[in-house]
């Protein structure tokens, strides 16, 4: 498969490319303002079905103009977002002006939104630390470290993408990031496992061989997952679209990072410290020593 050849021969270029995208994402993250959905910033999300009655549109242009964040028009409805400064009276007035076309109203207080932010952040960090610990025990610390670096790389790129394109950061986005973490780690573990197996057999240039052997599987898996994601993206409807988009980026870079980033890091470490290739002999699950 030409894709395989391409990946194998251009590892250096790909690592470089990946590094560039990573740095770009970091810069984007610091320079651009993330589009926090109401769930994280607080405020009101009002969903309506297609056309707003005249009274409601007037309010948006008039009284509500200074608390309006945005109006998102789609073919099957509109989403109106208001800041936390909207008063109850204004809100009730708007709701009654909408009448029949009102589908739902979500209200989140600013402080709760902030709490959700830090809560989600802590959850992700905690999960990552726990996984690193497990991998450090099963393999060794360098390999676990490499996996985490690759994971951070994937997340930063995904977030950079989100911020750059102004994709709204809400629960589904966080779900997508969680899924990327799961996927990336899964990928990395498969690569590491192959490496571990080759090291036991004292193979020459184990890292390269590991990549060669894992590549077919990684490519087929990625293609399969992308098929599902593209379908979700095109047919899934509003709610899952953002999710599918972020996931797609995550899968592409996740696969790339497992093959290129993790392995490059391990190779580099091995040049200085051959002990990197030593995996402590612990009773393994496959029954052999």
């Amino acid at each position, binding site marked *: 498969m030409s894709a395989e050849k391409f990946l194998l021969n251009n590892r250096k270029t790909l690592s470089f490319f990946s590094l560039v995208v990573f740095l770009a994402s970091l810069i984007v993250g610091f320079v651009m303002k993330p589009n926090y959905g109401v769930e994280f910033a607080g405020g009101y999300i009002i969903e309506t079905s297609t056309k707003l009655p005249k009274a409601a549109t007037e309010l948006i242009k008039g009284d509500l103009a200074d608390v309006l964040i945005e109006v998102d028009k789609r073919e099957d409805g509109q989403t109106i977002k208001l800041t936390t400064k909207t008063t109850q009276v204004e809100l009730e007035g708007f709701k009654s002006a909408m009448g029949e076309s009102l589908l739902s109203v979500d209200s989140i207080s600013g402080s709760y939104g902030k709490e959700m932010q830090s809560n989600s952040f802590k959850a992700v960090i905690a999960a990552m630390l*726990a996984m690193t610990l497990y991998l450090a025990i099963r393999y060794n610390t360098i390999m676990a470290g490499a996996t985490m670096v690759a994971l951070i790389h994937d997340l930063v790129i995904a977030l950079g993408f989100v911020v750059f394109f102004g994709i709204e950061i809400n629960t589904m986005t966080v779900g997508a990031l969680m899924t990327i973490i799961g996927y990336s780690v899964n990928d990395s573990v498969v690569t590491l*496992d192959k490496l571990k197996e080759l090291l036991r057999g004292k193979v020459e240039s184990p890292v390269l061989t590991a990549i060669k052997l894992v590549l077919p599987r990684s490519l087929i898996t990625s293609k399969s997952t992308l098929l599902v994601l593209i379908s979700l993206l095109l047919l899934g409807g509003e709610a*899952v679209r953002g999710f599918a988009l972020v996931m797609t980026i995550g899968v592409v870079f996740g696969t790339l990072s497992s093959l290129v980033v993790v392995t490059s890091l391990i190779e580099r470490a091995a040049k200085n410290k051959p002990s990197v290739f030593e995996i402590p002999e612990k009773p393994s699950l496959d029954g052999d020593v």
Partner: protein
Amino acid sequence: MLKRISLIGLLMIPIYLAGSLLFPKYLPNNDLVAPISLGIDLKGGHRLILGVSDADIERVSQDKVIEFVKFYNDVTVSHKDADSVIFNFKKKDDAVSEDTRTTFANELPTLTLSQTDNGIVVTGLLSIKEAELAQVIKKNIDIVSSRLNALGAADISVYRQGSNKVVVELPSDTDMEYTKKILTSTSKVGLYLESNDEDAVEIPYRGMTIKRMSTPFISGEGIEDAVAIVDSQTGQPSVTVRLDSKAGKSMSEVSAKNVGKPIITTIQERIKVDGVRQQVERIASVANIGTVLDRNFVVNGMGTMEASEELALVLQSGSLKAPMEIISEQTVDARLGESNIKAGMEAFVVGMLLLFAYVIYVYRWKGVVACSTIVINASLILIALSSIGASFTLTGIAGVVLTMGVAIDANIIIFERAKELGGNIKQAFTDSFSTIIDANVTTMIAALILFNVGSIPLKGFALTLAVGIVTTVISSYFINKTIMLTILKSGEDK
């Protein structure tokens, strides 16, 4: 041959059950498996998140200390803050009663009680804050549940989130305005005697100022039942209250000792006045004690029948231990939920079909087996979720997508391994085992942590993921292995 048929038969069971969950009309299952419950973002409904403020928890701790100290000592409260309460003796040269010290040693060992020249100082309240918070939330959940039951709401969920929040989920047709009012109502009834102590509370009433004792002799605690009525004597809306036996005794004792003196009945509430939450108290009635009173009494001065009914409901369920504010409200119209599901499901099915087509293209007959294990996997997830009684949320769908990705990955690992080994499928399974376990355990760790630490939407994701990992290992490895080996053994190629 028989083995193959019985195997296929066995595998059809989970698929059928899952099908019956999705299409209950066409595939009946006689309630073998409970139907899937959907989270409100998929089914529609209301989700309220109620929170308790820090200041209120402080107050709860302080009130507890005050109650204990005042029970044994004749004191007034001169100062209270986050960590301490200071009392002054009413009579000069009084001393701390021994009973107080014993009670504190037993019930509140982490607090320090000391006697000063003219009073008592209690410090260390911060140490009991966590425990008090947990108790408050627990009691509030009970009270909220009982209020919702009284309102006749069915199909509701009330549960704790984090350390200081309560989540309430209600069906779409709930009268939200009224329900919110009832849920957060802090109406408290208190019966007090008049007092001229330092810490007496002054309340204006009909042009006069009434001074009441700082603590009531009857409060919400002792109320057993409350009913809104029209008072036969005055023709006004009122609430009759029946006290429990302990409070009833207290009522008799106090009224016997104070015949001729007034009882002041007040209703307290914490409401927002111009955006600021304040404790507001009004006097419902002031009545002189004629005879010794018993367990029943009437609260007058309600104004409207509506107010009487609300107060009766709130009194019945008990007063909230600490006031709760609505910090978040989500309403999902059932229509919106339905369209979310429909679009998501369709896209997902199409995606999976494409995936199947691709896998079968690459792996031929092995691909067909792989795809069947995926279908079984999905069925098992559905059945497991409905058995646990877990709700399926929008983020749950994300969890399913990841699970399917990991599941197909497991299959691919095995097949590629078989290629490496020149076609020895049995060995491929054995070799791939540790890889698959490692990858899944790592993901499982993440799922467990997310479930414990995360907010509601993350919990939905984590649960689906955790269930999915278990079903994946079962279907993509064990069931897969069984099918493959059975097919190979019988020497037939599919």
